[in-house]
């Protein structure tokens, strides 16, 4: 077990642990077996050699069929971990995810369940354009019956993935491409992190900064910088965006009186809107300023480098939003 590792290594180790310890676990996805390269970014490298190509199955390019096959195998009691290479490709199999995986427990009156994980990755910053970089988590969060997990560091990636595999319900597990190579503390073998529990990364008193996945990098940097300027930020990593751990969020906001949520997904109808609305429902009288949202612009992800940079937020956007919250004066009394 390494002391430090990146997210690629953490995910690989978690999958290996699950395959080793649970005969019902198997993996399916395009090019994931070693004969096909062990995954486009080598996340599954070595697993088919160790556990067999009959448990680490490279599939044809047919997301609808193999995601549906995951649903069928899960109904039969297996624990498939299905890899959709890039998050935009989940659009190809949304019927299987939202009409079937999400609803089968409910529609069957609890008789059958879908203990399946769908792993996917996405993120802007690689000039891959409008169909290879979207954050689509809100699509899934809007469907009752799905859990949505979005780790931001290696240790969480490991523990959340093992929890997702053990979960009796379907879990969408979203990895951020730009964070893959970030080194961090490694989880112990078999270490679990519960789904639905947020992590208070840093305690503070003036404002609560809420993020998940990639935005944890930026809000942590902003929090460190502002600490030096006398602003004490509490930093919360949601880890799971459905269900959201509102108890932790609301408790923090009641303490600080201010909140900001940042995500790479587009702003409209997003997780930030949901978090903001709930904070205002549950902690309105504690708020000293409106809840701030920092997110990407409502446009497809552009190709040109300068446009792609413009598409998402900058560090300064988060910093300025925090300062606006801190200096908020109600102007229309």
């Amino acid at each position, binding site marked *: 077990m390494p002391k430090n590792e990146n997210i690629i290594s953490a995910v690989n180790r978690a999958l290996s642990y699950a395959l080793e310890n649970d005969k019902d676990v198997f993996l399916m996805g395009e090019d994931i077996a070693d004969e096909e390269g062990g995954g486009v970014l080598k996340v599954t490298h070595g697993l088919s050699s160790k556990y067999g190509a009959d448990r680490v199955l490279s599939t044809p390019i047919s997301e609808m069929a193999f995601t549906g*096959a*995951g649903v*069928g195998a899960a109904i039969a009691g297996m624990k498939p971990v299905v890899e959709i290479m890039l998050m935009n490709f989940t659009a190809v199999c949304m019927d299987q995810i939202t009409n079937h995986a999400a609803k089968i427990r409910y529609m069957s009156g609890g008789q059958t369940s879908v203990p399946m994980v769908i792993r996917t990755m996405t993120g802007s910053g690689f000039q891959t354009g409008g169909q290879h970089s979207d954050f689509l988590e809100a699509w899934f969060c809007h469907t009752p019956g799905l859990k949505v997990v979005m780790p931001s560091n290696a240790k969480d990636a490991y523990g959340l993935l093992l929890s997702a595999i053990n979960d009796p319900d379907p879990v969408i597990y979203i990895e951020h491409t730009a964070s893959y190579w970030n080194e961090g503390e490694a989880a112990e073998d078999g270490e679990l992190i519960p789904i639905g529990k947020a992590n208070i990364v840093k305690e503070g008193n003036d404002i609560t900064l809420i993020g998940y996945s990639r935005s944890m990098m930026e809000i942590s940097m902003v929090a460190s910088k502002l600490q030096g300027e006398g602003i004490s930020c509490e930093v919360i990593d949601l880890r799971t965006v459905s269900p959201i751990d509102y108890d932790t969020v609301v408790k923090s906001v009641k303490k600080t009186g201010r909140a900001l949520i940042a995500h790479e997904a587009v702003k409209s109808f997003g997780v930030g809107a949901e978090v903001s609305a709930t904070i205002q429902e549950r902690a309105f009288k504690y708020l000293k300023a409106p809840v701030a949202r920092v997110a990407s612009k409502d446009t497809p992800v552009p190709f040109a480098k300068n446009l792609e940079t413009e598409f998402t937020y900058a560090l300064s956007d988060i910093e300025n939003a925090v300062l606006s919250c801190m200096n908020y004066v109600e102007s229309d009394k």
Partner: protein
Amino acid sequence: MVKLENSILLSIYEKMTRIKMNDERFIAEMSAGRITMPYYSARGQECIPASISVLLNSDDYLVTIYRGIHDMLAKGVPAKLIWAELAGRETGACKGKGGPMHITHPATGCMLTTGIVGAGLPIATGLALSSKMRGDQRVTVTNFGDGASNIGAFHESLNLASVWKLPVIFVCQNNRYAEHTNFAKGTACDSVASRASSYNMPGVQVDGNDPQAVYAAAKAAIERARGGDGPTLIEAMTFRFNGHTMGDAGGYIPEEEYKTAKENDPYPIFRAFLEEASVATAEALNELDEAISLELEEAVRFAYDSPLVDASDVLKDVFA
């Protein structure tokens, strides 16, 4: 063709009778306004699941669609659980959460009923994948209509099942209309069965109104699946007598086609065959009919006598 054993023929007849009577009873209850539901009658298609299911074990898997009550009854899902589900009672197969388009009953292998055309095929492929991985010798039968053979999931699933040699049988109940659209108008080839050749599996077209023909095709497919040789596509030609859904008079179906189909109604033809071939006397068949009628009467009473689903259950079973 060699005539099937009498016991098998009678078993097929019993299933066909249960399906036909059940359909008539549903329609009567709906017409009387005692239950409301979206109902897709399979009247006319009884022979297909009746003839296949006599070859299946109770733990073999079934995946079917919104027009699938006949498939469920043939596989053994108790009528009273279906009735209670349709009536929205807590004793229903799915505690009132599924309704006629989403019945599940794992005890008889009925693992999924979907309301989305073609969506059951990938899921059936996955059930078969689990059987292959576990070596449990189960086969999966998935039913669908001719319209489903034009969606992507059909083609992807046949390809995947063939590449991986999965024990799944794809049964197209070709009733010649995809909702209101005639087969030829929506399908670019002459038969669904011919599409199997693209996926390197047997594709068999049979008369879906002939129990012996359906039985023979299913027997070969099941043996092939259990033997580890992979999937089969069966296209069983049939006709639905009650339109796409209740209230659809089928005005888009030419009168001549409708008349010919009615003349070839598989149910009375099969019954007459049983008598003529001395498989059973009219009296014996009447007795069987009467027993099924009583069973359905009990199912209806069970449904209406059961309590409604408790409103507090609305949030139950979203998650474990």
